[in-house]
């Protein structure tokens, strides 16, 4: 019987299981996850799960019963120690599994700080449900949270924590928050938003160490200055989990190198999600994305191709972030643009910044503006008159090509 093995416990792994069965595969599926939880959605971890609004079972990509009903052999809390790409086996502490096709959906790991005091209690990273369970348990008794890193994860946590009554400081090494991922305009908007809600943001401020008493953190050190904190969350980026692939002789370059069919350098081994470096035929360059839609799409593509299909992955990347009552939806990369067009008024907390290159839409940042996001999704790569986009009197529907 044909046997598919999937390594991973996130959205890509869960979707791949579902897609294999949806595509009609009746052979054996073995899912091996390092975490003790069935594949779950990570985005709510720093949002609704952290705040307590959504319980753990709601995060599962598919309910537990799904895996029983669909006859999926699940090994949780199980670490894969090696992939043998010649013998086509995967080795774990539980035993060795043969595969006809393998999907690597190992995701990524938070970048760790290695500075004095970084092993004190009370310093957390945020990637897994277990991480957030530990943060929540401590948050209830904490007063002062310091977030190291002004990226989306850090800012989402800041919004939850300050809303829960904690004092919150955010340290950002660069000149502005979100510097790596968005424009100065959006950085300034979110900076102002967070400060208006009581978050203290310190830009151009690196974290040099931690100080504590009784093994627990009490202060975050920034050069000569110190910030009091009884809870620290570090969000300074992630690294793709490629070691298993590397050790198996699979080509990697800032991620596991795959083609537009999600196939690695080994014809029977596929990869999907955060861990991949993949070509984007629409943008004409390779990407490594930290994104759920990417994980889902690559999982579907992998599943189809593992079953002998010919499915190409080609999608415009998109992302979202929830902070306070604001939903930010992003499409494309604003760094690709040569012009920006604002629609709406940031003061009202409802606006969209469209980004154009050579008159064509290449990206959007839409704040509480789902319609603008959907327009950009449909008009990506199309020429649009900037004055129409900017004019709230112009119905966006009229800009869409007539069907």
């Amino acid at each position, binding site marked *: 019987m044909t046997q598919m093995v999937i390594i991973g416990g996130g*959205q890509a792994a869960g979707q791949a299981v*579902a897609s294999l*069965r*949806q595509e009609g595969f009746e052979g054996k599926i073995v899912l091996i996850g390092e975490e003790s939880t069935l594949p779950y*959605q990570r*985005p*709510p971890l720093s949002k609704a799960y952290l705040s307590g609004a959504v319980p753990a079972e709601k995060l599962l*990509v*598919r*309910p537990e*019963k*799904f895996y029983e009903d*669909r006859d999926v052999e699940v090994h949780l809390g199980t670490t894969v120690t090696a992939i043998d790409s010649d013998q086509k086996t995967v080795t774990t502490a539980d035993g060795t599994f043969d595969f006809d096709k393998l999907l690597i959906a190992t995701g990524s790991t938070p970048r760790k700080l290695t500075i004095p005091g970084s092993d004190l209690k009370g310093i957390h990273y945020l990637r897994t449900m277990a991480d957030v369970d530990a943060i929540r348990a401590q948050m209830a008794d904490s007063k002062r949270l310091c977030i190291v890193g002004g990226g989306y994860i850090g800012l989402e946590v800041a919004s939850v924590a300050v809303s829960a009554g904690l004092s919150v400081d955010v340290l950002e090494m660069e000149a502005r928050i979100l510097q790596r991922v968005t424009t100065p305009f959006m950085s300034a908007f979110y900076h102002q938003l967070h400060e208006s809600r009581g978050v203290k943001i310190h830009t151009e401020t690196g974290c040099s160490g931690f100080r504590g008493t009784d093994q627990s953190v009490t202060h975050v050190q920034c050069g000569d200055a110190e910030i009091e904190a009884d809870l620290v969350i570090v969000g300074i980026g992630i690294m793709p989990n490629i070691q298993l692939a590397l050790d198996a002789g699979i080509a990697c370059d800032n991620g596991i190198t795959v083609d537009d069919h999600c196939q690695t350098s080994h014809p029977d081994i596929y990869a999907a999600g955060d861990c991949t470096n993949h070509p984007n035929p629409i943008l004409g360059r390779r990407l490594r994305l930290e994104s*759920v*839609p990417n994980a*889902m*799409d690559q999982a579907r593509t992998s599943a189809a191709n593992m079953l002998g299909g010919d499915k190409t992955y080609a999608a415009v990347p*998109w992302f*979202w972030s*929830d902070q306070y009552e604001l*939903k930010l*939806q992003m499409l494309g990369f604003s760094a690709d643009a040569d012009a920006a067009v604002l629609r709406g008024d940031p003061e009202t907390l409802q606006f969209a910044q469209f980004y154009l290159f050579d008159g064509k839409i290449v990206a959007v940042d839409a704040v509480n*503006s*789902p*319609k603008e996001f*959907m*327009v950009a*999704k*449909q008009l990506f790569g199309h020429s649009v008159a900037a004055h129409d986009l900017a004019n709230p009197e112009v119905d*966006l*529907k009229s800009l*869409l090509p007539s*069907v």
Partner: protein
Amino acid sequence: MPSVKFIEHNGTEHVVEGNNGDSLMVIATSNLVPGIDADCGGECSCATCHVLVDSEWLSKLGAISETEESMLDLNPDREPSSRLSCQIDMSDDLAGIVINLPEFQY
């Protein structure tokens, strides 16, 4: 458990059971009903779980939120019966609801 009948665009019917409190999107994806992508996992962020609710059932649904309305507004397949299935939670009142699936998600 209350049941839901999903009808694919090609007419294939799927009668599946769901738990009260689960969204129709979750019920569909948990039962491998094709035609619902649900790329964002139910956050009303992507509009890829668009469904057409059978007219007899429309009045039993709660009001549509502003966000959902905006997400649907630009969908080329938009009908008066259009909803995002992640925004409809199953309840006893909806037992037996009939949901038609569009040909494409955008």
